[in-house]
């Protein structure tokens, strides 16, 4: 693979990676958000595979493929299953007249009222990306390769993921925010160190998988106990 092609492909993957994060912010439908998250997993896997192919380190390619399977396949599947559990009570063919109960259900699968509205969120994402570029400048200057030049993208996704975590009400949207955060950290690790050892990545992935499993169960339980997954309603538990 020639250097120019490698750089272009890497930049493309990183761009897709960042764009996916921004689209997560833009979407309201939880199902769409999960779909975009899956696409971001593919972009992340592409980054890892590209890095591995460029440096001819096949273990890195294997790690990349593993990441792809986990983040584009397993995790979206788990979240979708949780989503399906939330909407399971709803009849498949919704009648024309929407009852209150069904509106509640449709609200469960939509991020209807984030704490900060969509437009402001997108603007904030732009600002956070700028901040990431500003903060990562000294790191990029240390060793300006195509990989380190893309480093701020990872940081930006970390910040955007954190932002999703802070501003979204639905528990599942928050799970996606947490996973965005983790994707950003993984991308930063790959871009900064040109690949993490297999064992480290394995541990991190396993951790994330477990966290998602636990969160999935918690979400279902929350819905059973409180009738909603809006985590602001947990405020009542405060002493």
């Amino acid at each position, binding site marked *: 693979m020639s250097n120019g092609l490698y750089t272009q492909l890497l930049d493309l993957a990183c761009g897709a990676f960042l764009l996916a994060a921004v689209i997560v912010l833009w979407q309201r439908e939880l199902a769409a958000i999960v779909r975009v998250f899956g696409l971001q997993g593919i972009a992340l896997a592409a980054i890892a595979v590209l890095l591995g192919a460029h440096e001819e380190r096949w273990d890195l390619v294997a790690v990349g493929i593993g990441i792809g399977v986990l983040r584009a396949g397993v995790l979206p599947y788990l979240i979708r299953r949780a989503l399906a559990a939330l909407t399971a009570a709803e009849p498949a063919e919704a009648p024309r007249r929407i009852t209150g109960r069904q509106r509640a259900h449709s609200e469960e699968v939509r991020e209807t009222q984030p*704490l900060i509205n969509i437009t402001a969120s997108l603007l904030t994402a732009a600002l*956070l990306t700028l*901040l*990431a570029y*500003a*903060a990562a*400048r*000294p790191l990029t200057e240390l060793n300006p390769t195509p990989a380190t030049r893309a480093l701020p993208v990872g940081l930006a996704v970390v*910040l955007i993921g*954190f*932002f999703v*975590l*802070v*501003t979204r*009400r639905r528990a599942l949207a928050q799970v996606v925010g947490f996973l965005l955060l983790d994707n950003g950290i993984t991308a930063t690790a790959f871009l900064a160190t040109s690949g993490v050892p297999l064992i480290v990545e394995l541990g991190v992935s396993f951790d994330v998988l477990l966290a998602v499993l636990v969160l999935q169960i918690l979400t279902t339980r929350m819905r059973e106990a409180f009738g909603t997954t809006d*985590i*602001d309603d*947990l*405020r*009542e*538990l*405060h002493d």
Partner: protein
Amino acid sequence: MSVIPAALATATAVGGAGAAAGLVLPQRPRVPVVGVLTAGVGVAGGAAGVAALGGDRWADTLPGVLPLAGTYLAVDALAGLFMAVAGAVVAAVAVYGIGYAGGHGPHGLGSRTAQAVLPLFALTLVLVPVAASVSTFLVLWELMALASLLLVLAEHRERASVRQAGVWYAVMTHLGLVLLLIGLAVFAAEAGGETFAALRAGAHAVSPTVRGLVFVLIAAGFTSKAGAVPLHAWLPRAHPEAPSPVSALMSAAMVNLGIYGLVRTGLDLLGGGPAWWWLGLMTIGGASAVHGILQAAMASDLKRLLAYSTSENMGLVLIGVGASGLFAAYDDRPLAALALAAALLHVVNHAAFKALLFCAAGSVLRATGLRDLDRLGGLRAPMPATAGLFALAALGAVALPPGNGFISEWLLLQSLIHGLQVPGVAVAVVLPLSVALIALSAGIAAAVFVKALGVGFFARPRSRQASAAKESPPLMLAGMGLLAAACGALALVPGLLGDGLDRAVAATGLPGSGAVSGGGLNVRLADISASLSPLWLVAALTAALMLAAGLPRLYRRRRRRANARLWDCGGGPPTPRMAYTATSFAEPLQRVFDDILAPEQDVNVTPVRESTYLVERVRFQRRVPDRIEHRLYEPVLRALAGTGQAARRLAGGSVHLYLGYGFVGLVVLLLALAVGW
């Protein structure tokens, strides 16, 4: 081979064995075995101290004991003095404690925890002066504080007030530790090493501002341990609530270590300092002396009275240490040595009589279950030995001849009076004031101990418990007898301390004063034409007393004695309720110092229903609160509680809010990085 390492190793081994015995042994043999081993710690530690006072020196490093820092140990005469005092007190009180805890059952001082901690506390009391590096010192210091805290809490099952006292003590002692930690860490960083040798060598290169800061911090930490105002609030709480042998150990051995730390760091390691350090120290000392003794005069709880008296005596010692530093700052070294010798001698004397006083108070408490002087009385007949021992110790505490406290206070006054030749306006104001404060506190101390002895032991019993009192078991009397012997020896022949006191003073770099050395029976001051011969003084006093008591008797023998009933104003025979109580005895003093003490009075008059002129019940209540505590602590505590309440608002319960804190923190950090680069 030197005596000191062998004695210290023995003390450590015996202390460890005592702790293990306290943990393992069943209840019956536990108290005697632990008591004997604790006494062994005291004897071994005291022997090391005496050897050091005799001129031995020893230093060693144990690199493996404390990770990273290593353990530095050194014994000189100054450390030896405090080790000897602590060792002697521990040995006598341990003997007393066997008798005290023996009858107490499985709770309180006889419990497994308390008996396991007691030898460790004794060991740390002996070992703190041995430390020769900042980290070693702080570790031992903290161990001592924790051990004493556990012992203070020993009777928490019996009284709820013990827990409150424990909280106060824990907070105050750790506040002191934090101050010491900061002060010594700054000192070590600036001097370029944390061993005492490195500190001593590097102290002169430290800038005056930093030296001043270090001194203020460590002086605050050490005076808090010594129970001086304004950080004294733990002392009148913890000492009364602790079991009596523990009170004796704390009051006679632990508070001394605050003085030790101050002398060690201020005079030795920092090598003295400008006059304002020492004027400040003398102010604190004077305030503690007067405040402590006034509060003691108002107290009707016997052990609280003794605790406040400790605060007073430590105040006197601080005046001595401050005067010593002041004279050294003006380069009058003989006078500085005299003031320090007076202060150290007072530490020794105070340890002897205060340990005995607390033990006697413990005997009273054990016999009657009462600490309230208002309900005691008439204990002389059922407890003659305890009453006699208490009287002997009280004589030492009132600083009148022939008590042992007199000699050190006399030395202190001599040094202050002759210090007027030192130039400076502040000195000219502070020294006469200090003399006046010492005189005032000595006068009130006389009233305090007349009250404690007269109201507590004489007259008629004022409660059922007091009239049912029995004399203490022989082991307790034996322990008190040892302390009484020490009191007597110090009162009659202070020359027994020999050159040890001089060597202790010389360890700080001052010349020896020769105050109690050489003369044997006499106290002779080398640079001041003054001398005192305690033994002759006692002989003369005894002769005069016998004369005063004997002559009228001789004269009266020829007359016949007529017995008649006491005139009772027609109100029936006098009852114990008519006798002076501690409160009524203190009432005139309280009137004199009304403005300072600010007592709170409450009169509730309940009239009979339907008539405002007929009174059904009058309730009168008077409290004399500790004013410093009232003014200084309560606002701070209120502010702290207010801040805590306000901080709860930060935790509103919303998960988004908590996440938001993290997010905003991260963004601000990144912004700072981005802008900063």
